[in-house]
């Protein structure tokens, strides 16, 4: 069955430290994956998708088919990165969502 796993409910790092938000997926076929972010009191918004291979707000995510992972990384965390992050997988024209990771950047 298709599934998205975000093993960390909460991740707390200091400002300036590297950040890695983990996402593992289960999918038969070629996956299409997204990262969404929800800042406090804002709507859920798309951060990046794997096929674009862009860096958005300093974040990157690489699809690793061997490890079935799509981890989100940023080399130097900023306080404004504090938010809820969701990994999502396309399946049958819908998105399957991970449980989310709350990222807290400590000053």
């Amino acid at each position, binding site marked *: 069955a298709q599934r998205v796993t975000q093993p960390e409910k909460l991740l707390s790092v200091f400002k300036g430290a590297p950040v890695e938000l983990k996402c593992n997926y289960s999918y038969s076929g070629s996956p299409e994956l997204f990262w969404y972010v929800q800042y406090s009191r804002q*709507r859920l918004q*798309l951060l990046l998708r794997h096929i674009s291979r862009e860096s958005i707000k300093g974040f990157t995510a690489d699809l690793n088919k061997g490890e079935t992972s799509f981890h989100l990384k940023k080399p130097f965390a900023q306080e404004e990165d504090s938010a*809820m992050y969701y990994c999502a997988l*396309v399946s049958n*024209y819908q998105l399957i969502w991970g*449980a*989310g990771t709350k990222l807290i950047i400590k000053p």
Partner: protein
Amino acid sequence: SAVISQKPSRDICQRGTSLTIQCQVDSQVTMMFWYRQQPGQSLTLIATANQGSEATYESGFVIDKFPISRPNLTFSTLTVSNMSPEDSSIYLCSVDLQGSYEQYFGPGTRLTVT
């Protein structure tokens, strides 16, 4: 992207009553989705609402409890019927603008049932 609005933004309702949530998009879209999100938790898809066809409900959600209308390509409503405190949640609509699987979200409707 698209501008997506929802009404109401929040409401407090008594058990046994119904609430209709509206979702308006500033461009024509084929696929719209309705989600439920408990605060601080992930999203649960309620149904997919495509214009010109009946909504498709996910397991655990039924039309009698969550009737959906999709009268045109820019508008949809979700009704939460015969509400109980367990229906207290944030309800979100989203759209897939170009069939690209990227979804854009409304601001949500925070529902509290007393």
